[in-house]
């Protein structure tokens, strides 16, 4: 019986752990609410929608969401300009020095509305959840979010060291020359 108390306590503590949920379909009202971002007037940074916070920022630390983001990054031709983060016609993402900053809301707005220098809008191609997924994935390219969740390399041509290989990659300390 003495052994039972710690066991029950351990089980309770375990029960409090966060579950990794994978919803394959999100409710339409949530989808609508997820689009309710409030960017700052210069459209750099801002506040995420309430529902995003209420859901516990479900995209940035969820491996499934990140890999969905990666899949969309590939399928939506992001690679055509940004390659696998190294850039080309579009700016590089790997270095983490971004024109509109590292904030997830900036990324969301960038993807949804586009940016003047050639970045197209994806508002009519992706729903809000997908936009969040891509934004969260792009954030991991620039190493702004290390840690608890990451995608891994794809089964295709090796383009750069696997995302989760070795210790987390820190962003460059100096902006690269433009």
């Amino acid at each position, binding site marked *: 019986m003495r052994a039972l108390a710690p066991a029950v306590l351990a089980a309770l503590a375990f029960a409090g752990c966060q579950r990794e949920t994978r919803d394959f379909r999100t409710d339409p009202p949530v989808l609508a609410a997820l689009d309710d971002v409030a960017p700052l007037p210069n459209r750099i940074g801002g506040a995420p929608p309430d529902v995003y916070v209420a859901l516990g920022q479900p995209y940035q630390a969820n491996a499934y969401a990140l890999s969905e983001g990666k899949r969309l990054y590939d399928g939506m031709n992001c690679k055509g300009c940004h390659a696998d983060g*190294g850039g080309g016609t579009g700016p590089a993402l*790997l270095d983490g020095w971004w024109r509109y900053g590292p904030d997830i809301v900036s990324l969301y707005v960038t993807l949804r509305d586009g940016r003047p220098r050639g970045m197209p809008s994806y508002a009519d*191609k992706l729903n809000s959840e997908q936009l969040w997924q891509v934004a969260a994935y792009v954030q991991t390219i620039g190493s702004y979010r290390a840690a608890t969740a990451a995608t891994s390399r794809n089964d295709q041509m090796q*383009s750069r060291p696997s995302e989760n290989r070795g210790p987390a990659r820190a962003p460059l300390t100096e902006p690269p020359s433009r």
Partner: protein
Amino acid sequence: MGLKAYAFETSIRGALVAGALLGSQTARADPPALGLETIGRLELAWTFRTGNPRGHAGAPAVSGDSIFVLTPFPHALVALDLQGHERWRVVPDSDPRAEGLATGGGVTDGPVLAGGRLYLTTLDGHAMAVEAATGRVAWDRAVASLDAGETLRNAPLVQGGRVYVGSAGDDAGARGWLAALDSGTGRELWRRLSTGPDGEVGIGPQFRSAYPTEAGADLGVRTWPPEAWRQGGGSPGPILADAELGVVVYGTGHPAPWNPDQRPGSNRWTSGLFARDAATGAARWFTPTNPHDEHAYGAASPNLLVDRPWRGVDRKLLVHPDPNGFLQVLDRETGLILSAKPIVPTNAVSGLDAGSGAPVRADAKRTHADTMTRDICPAWTGPVLAEPALSAETGFVLLPTSRLCMDLEPRDSGVIPGTLSIGANVRLKVPAGPAGALVAWDLEREAPAWTAEEPLPLAGGVLATGGLAIYGTLDGRLKALDARSGRSLWEYRAPSGIIGRPVAFTGPDGRAYLAVLAGVGGPLGQAARGGIDVRDATAAGGLANAVRQAAYRDILGQGDESGSLLVFRLP
């Protein structure tokens, strides 16, 4: 020697004064002209910083005592006097969205001077005419649509009162076209596409191909999967004109998307050479060089028109350094391929089929969706990116070559407006040995006369004048060689890598000048300036992978914050 170079009027890239003929015509006993003896004394007169960091391709235009420079996007057209003082400047409105379609570093070319006017095209799709004397804009037409993924890269060709403009943007899934505008008003006279029904392509009764494979109705539709021709690519390369025959000649770009399995068929009329009636745009002939292009080669390389005897008969020739690595010599009256020899190490194509003119592809280097093919030579960039030149003194064709190879993995991709539907993973590679070379090609022997090896690929055009071959390198060296032997005679270290083409001219003061734009960029120089993260091997069309190799690493840091015009003068 029965040889005539179409150097200026028909110049592909718009320099009024270039090549040997002018040099020899304007030569006076004193002061000396640029030549083998005098080149050593050439000295820098002045430089002009353009303030634009992109790659500066092409050459400035020169007229009397004025030099005209069109900077890269966002463009400025600047007129300078021969002392380097700015006379006037025209800054066209620019649409920044064009940057998103600026593949390969987004280099542009121009301006072209004709009849006292400067003609230019802008990356964001405008064709313009500007009065050379005053800088007044005579007309300004939006001819290409960014919404459709179209941009304008090549300099216009001005001839016979018409301005010929070719679109770019096959990586964005745009259909390539060639348009003729009225040089006086900018009114569009005709526009012919590279894919689609015969009516839109301009295939009619005039069309006679040297090859039987090109006969048939609506090949531009039938050689594609249903509707695929609507985003089929095929953007024209640099345009040449032969006034005598009344034709314009150009190569068409690769079909879109890169993945060959998404577009089974021979994909007419991409990746081949077109000759069109200069007045109506009707096609005269088409010679495919890379049908059902599997390596994104296309055929849009800079060509040369040469008139010389061929196997004892005087012939009008088209010298076409095809991106698949073979230098092809065609009869430009019929489109018949007379000769095809590799100018760089190749393995994707082993030779040409005599009957159809089609390349014989090596099975080991064919590409398929989701399959990586390693070490395909040459790379998609092709062996010759910039203008070759004909050396009048020697008769050699001077070819600035690159010897890159690539790993290519085509993947399925859809066309999404505003994006580039390349869909392929590609890594460029520097094979063993030098990455570039200036090749002096002897048309007579169908073999190189000499080869000047370079550690980096050559991405700028060549100037042949006074028995010299003058060209710049990606690591910023401007070099002059003896065109007969390839012996190095003179070298100058520029502040940035060079992808432009030098021009030589004689000023009103009678002194010999040499001008060149420095400013590294373009598909082979893009990585020099930063903005590319080479940790991703596929960045910048795979260039990052090459830059990570020791042989190519010298290019890093060659970029300058601003391109510049360097003007040299003999004392």
